[in-house]
């Protein structure tokens, strides 16, 4: 496979800013970055460095002011809101710091949620959800509601929800930020397994150096600029 074919995320001269109090505040400037298929990349940097903004842009939940952002050859900056929603549903799996599970749905229903946007039958959805929850070690917690699960277990449900549709990329925003050390290690182990054994491309934002060790590549951001980010190999 050529290098170009192996590149999953292609970012060129990306810029993003916000307006606060009538003043333009640049958050990202001239970002150029390639992420290869099957990579486990960690974006690090101090607060306000723009790492979460970059993650949001890659995940298609925010739009850049300028530049190009291609995922699997598709320039997602050109997609409409509706097209982006469909694109996210089939290409992106989200893992948030605070899990963002629906409190009124049990583990099974939370994981089933993204599958409602597919054409799978009820039986197929059930099979897939059971398999995914078993993969994250929660096969026996399917009927439990989020408030009946520990933080680590909730994050594992969130991981199951993120991977149940078999997305192209997993985006993780501080996935261990709200967890104790043991639970964090469990979550990182699952992410490593997903990357190593299943070839999932993972883009993770973290402050935690220990968590960053799980990644294969570290990219540092500071004041909206990339620091020493070699292209994907």
């Amino acid at each position, binding site marked *: 496979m050529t290098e170009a074919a192996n590149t999953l995320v292609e970012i060129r001269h990306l810029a993003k800013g916000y307006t606060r109090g009538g003043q333009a505040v640049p958050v990202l400037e001239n970002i150029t970055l390639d992420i290869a298929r099957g990579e486990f990349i960690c974006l690090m940097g101090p607060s306000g460095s723009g790492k979460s903004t970059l993650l949001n842009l890659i995940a298609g*939940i*925010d739009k850049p002011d300028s530049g190009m952002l291609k995922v699997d050859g598709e320039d997602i900056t050109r997609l409409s*809101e509706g097209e982006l929603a469909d694109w996210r549903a089939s290409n992106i799996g*989200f893992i948030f710091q605070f899990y*963002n599970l629906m409190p*009124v*749905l049990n583990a099974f229903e939370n994981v089933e949620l993204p599958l409602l946007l597919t054409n799978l039958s009820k039986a197929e959805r059930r099979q897939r959800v059971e398999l995914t929850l078993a993969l994250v070690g929660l096969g026996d917690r399917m009927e439990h509601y989020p408030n009946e699960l520990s933080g680590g277990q909730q994050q594992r449900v969130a991981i199951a929800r993120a991977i149940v549709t078999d997305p192209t990329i997993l985006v993780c925003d501080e996935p261990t930020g709200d967890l104790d050390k043991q639970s964090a290690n469990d979550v990182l182990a699952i992410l490593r397994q997903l990357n190593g054994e299943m070839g999932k491309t993972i883009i993770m934002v973290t402050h935690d150096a220990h968590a960053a060790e799980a990644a294969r590549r570290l990219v540092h951001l500071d004041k909206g600029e990339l620091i020493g980010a070699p292209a994907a190999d």
Partner: protein
Amino acid sequence: MYFIKLIFKNVFRAKLRSSLTIVGLVIAVLAFGLLQTVVDAWFAGANAASAARMVTRNAISLVFPMPVYYRDRIKAVPGVKAVSHSQWFGGIYIEPKNFFPQFAVDADNFFEMYPEFIFKPEELLAFKRDRQGAVVGRKLAEQYGWKVGDVVPIRGTIFPGNWQFTIRAIFDGKDETTVTRQFYFQWNYINEFLLKRFPRRADQIGVFTIEVTDPGRVADIARAIDAEFKNSLAETLTETEKSFQLGFVAQSEAIVVAIRVVSFVVIIIIMAVVANTMAMTARERLAEYATLKALGFSPGFVAALVFGEAMMLALIGAGIGILLTFPVAQGFAASPAGAAFATFNVSASTVWLQVASAVLVGVVAALIPAFRSANIRIVDGLRHVG
């Protein structure tokens, strides 16, 4: 199914808040239903009027009588099938608060013109044979525990004296819209009294009830009857029974309008309450709505969730409110206050109005929260702490 389940679970997430909102809705829908029923009751007499019946009264005012001999002249007008007469009695049963309409009627044919009153033939015959006999409607009989054979004392006001009537018949209504709270007795009974005591007031009646052969010709017949008595001492005004009844309602139109306004104000207040509940709910769940949008759900789905929740709240409240309207209306009808109304039945149109008002409350309450939730930027929503 999943969508409904999610809405249902969301509705009862903040149990206290949802319960209080539902209680508010129940009270509002119940109050709305009862007030509408009061308005219906006001119009019950007019709505139950027959298209084939007309009423002739003194053209000056209802309080002025007409000579009973007009009857034969009215009967001779082409298109008139039958004529009967009646007189408002206005007596007091034990004490003034026991109000019910009392009429002295022509026993020979009055009830033949009212097929909606269902009699036992032998009872009606007994009434016709007894000069002091009386006929009462079922609801009135139930209200005072009367049965056939009971003697009812009534103190006259317009017709002075202590009168005694023996109940000879109790009639039922053809259906629930038929008024059965009246008390009838023989006009001949009071006329004989007047002939002896106040001869100048004798042989006078309050209104003629006229049955026509063709309801399509009532306007012509009315004109012909009134022309018959033009320039007489007691000129007449003939109108359909419905117009006659509506004339009474018109006298209290301001009250009816006030009741209607209050009933709609109640709905507007509860609309504000539910809108407040939905605004709080939606604000607390912005992070969840943003998560759903991040997962690929459309803004329309998020809006539908908010609308669905508001609608479910409204319909649960309305459902309970509607179910309670019937027993509460029955209880009111049976109470002394309810006796003021001839009928007090919750109509189908009232129920539909209750449902429509609940749907309106749900839609309006959800409008702004749904719009905001559906259009929130995902990154802003994800930052939101509920």
